[in-house]
């Protein structure tokens, strides 16, 4: 068992997969000679050469589309978006082309491609560098959407994403790249669509993914001192979604708080809440509650950014509310 950072775990996953399958290549801004804007691809150019690790021009729409075209004829591209804010430039290719190709062609052209990069707020990056895209992209049939909250999950899920025969949106986080965690030395894969129970408890279920998992864990830790046992579950992949894990936890705790770094309307959290009320209505002892970003563009000032994101001081009162402790 090695201790790796999140970026090292992702880099290891790519290196192993590229060694296994010569059809895999990595393209993106600064991925090769600069070793990655966030050093996720560090060492890959040396290992695999400039034919397979390619610095792109700053043309997200162009190189996203290049990846889709290459995938249509048999290659397996990994396309790095320096951040998903820039990836929005490539949404035409992701939404109109990658997601729909298999269906439009009635199964003739699959698009095995991974679009990966950091998602959401980091620290004081302001409005144009702090967005999350999972809400927008889980709306699109044909895409898979994957998140991870720690090095081990990132490693196993990225490997599965690369082997998947569909376009996979793999969401990382600037705030997590330096996070350390144990990763098994032996190669292993985590299937897409299987969630993970990060902490067991019986009073209330906290549903969170990506860096909100550590927020939820911190809240659970704090509440444990008051005798409240939170169950923290991480669906990991948002499409497909591990609904069984969610429903089983609801049946156990009967109370749910969803914590997400996104806006409230038409989000992954709103979909999960709708599924819970539909399939677990009789199990609920309180309304499903959600803690989300405030519905404003991200401000720059540190105190204002903190106020917008779902932080413990906004999460804990909501947990107490569903427990009728207020």
């Amino acid at each position, binding site marked *: 068992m090695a201790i790796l950072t999140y970026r090292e775990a992702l880099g290891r996953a790519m290196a192993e997969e590229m060694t296994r399958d010569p059809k895999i*290549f990595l393209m993106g801004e600064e991925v090769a000679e600069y070793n990655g804007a966030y050093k996720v691809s560090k060492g890959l150019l040396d290992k695999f050469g400039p*034919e397979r690790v390619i610095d*792109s*021009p700053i*043309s997200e*729409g*162009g*190189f*996203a*589309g*290049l*990846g*889709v*075209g*290459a*995938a*249509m*004829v*048999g*290659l397996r*591209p990994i396309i790095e978006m320096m951040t998903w804010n820039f990836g929005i430039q490539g949404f*035409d*290719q992701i939404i*109109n*082309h990658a997601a729909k*190709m*298999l*269906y*439009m*062609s*009635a*199964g*003739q*052209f*699959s698009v*095995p491609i991974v679009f990966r990069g950091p998602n959401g707020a980091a620290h004081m990056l302001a409005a144009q560098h702090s967005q999350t895209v999972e809400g927008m992209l889980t709306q699109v*049939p*044909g895409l*898979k959407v994957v998140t991870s909250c720690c090095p081990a999950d990132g490693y196993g899920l990225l490997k599965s994403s690369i082997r998947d*025969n*569909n376009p996979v949106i793999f969401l990382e986080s600037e705030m997590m790249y330096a996070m350390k965690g144990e990763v098994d030395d032996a190669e292993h894969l985590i299937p897409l669509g299987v969630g993970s129970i990060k902490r067991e408890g019986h009073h209330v279920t906290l549903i969170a993914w990506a860096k909100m998992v550590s927020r939820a864990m911190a809240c659970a830790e704090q509440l444990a001192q008051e005798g409240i046992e939170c169950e923290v579950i991480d669906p990991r992949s948002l499409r497909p979604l591990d609904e069984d894990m969610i429903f089983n936890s609801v049946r156990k705790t009967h109370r749910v708080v969803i914590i997400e770094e996104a806006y409230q309307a038409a989000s992954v959290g709103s979909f999960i809440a709708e599924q819970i009320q539909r399939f677990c209505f009789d199990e609920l002892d309180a309304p499903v509650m959600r803690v989300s970003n405030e519905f404003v563009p991200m401000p720059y000032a540190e105190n204002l950014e903190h106020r917008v994101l779902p932080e413990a001081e906004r999460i804990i009162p909501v947990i107490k509310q569903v427990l009728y402790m207020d």
Partner: protein
Amino acid sequence: MRLILDRESFDDKQLIVKRGHYPMSPKGNLPGKASGNKSDGSKDSEKNMASKNSQDKAWLLKVYQDMCYYRRFEERVLQAYTKQKFAGFCHVHIGQEGLCVGVQRALRDTDYMITGYRSHTQAIAKGIPGKEVFAELYGKATGCAKGNGGSMHMFSKEKRFLGGHGIVGGQVPLAAGVGFAIKYEKKDDIIVCYLGDAAINQGQFHEALNMAATWSLPCLFIIENNRYGMGTDIKRTTSIDHLWKRALAYDMDHGQVDAMNVQKTYEAVSTIVANMRKTNRPYLLDAICYRYKGHSVSDPGLYRSKEEMAEWMMKDPIIQLGEYLKKNKMASDEELKAIDTKGKEMARADEDWADEQPIPPEEQVWQNVYAD
């Protein structure tokens, strides 16, 4: 040698229409890149073959047959649409057959093709049976995309036809990706990427051309320059007078061809493709053509004068080749008429077949959303 331009002879776009004059490079041959890498493939066997073919009677009669068939096919498509036998968008190629056939003849089966939403006859030319294209228009289970695609989305993996695509310019980066894959796999195939004239103003077009030129990808970008983006004259939206000039920004090989003439188109594309197979370099071809019908079925084309239309119809690709065949005593009027009649019958047979086909089963809704 395009960089040294004589504005006098190049900048009057009215020339194209009023005098039927297509400005070519000063020496009259296909221009190559200014760096000296011009398309001087005249010594190549491919070029010789191209010249030979384009004067060979049997070859020309088959080309004539294809053009007649494609026109009659599109006419039947329009009639079927008018009779409300199918719905959705419907863009036909009538008038542009010379380009479609001339390009196809210059390719080999392993080459790839991708195009925009005006894709019916290009799909047939690439090898998809016309009846499967017609069935696709009808949304039938035996269409080339099983009724999932329709008029704008013809596909055949087997024939390497990578789709009609409905977002203007969206197919251009995809073509760069196919070119990337060809190079990655060290093959000498090429991809032909058709795009409309108005697509040259999309950002993705520029991004793709830059990548194709920077990385030397074997992509032949062909602008189907019929001068109108829907109802907007390209002159009103575009700062350059000749669309091949887009290539100058990327130091890309480029040229212009009179695509109303199938022989010229075939010879030009043969030369370009032969060169590309050796160099892997991309090429931007400005193919001057004209669509007789509106942008789509719902467009009566009121933005064009009758005089303009009449002028272009005098240069009709089918009439031009017919005149050539007669002048060179390769065919009589009667023989040409018989060929056209056969084209009509082929198109009718396609429609008749499509009429009889089953609609897709309901469970198809859920299939092919995700690959296994």
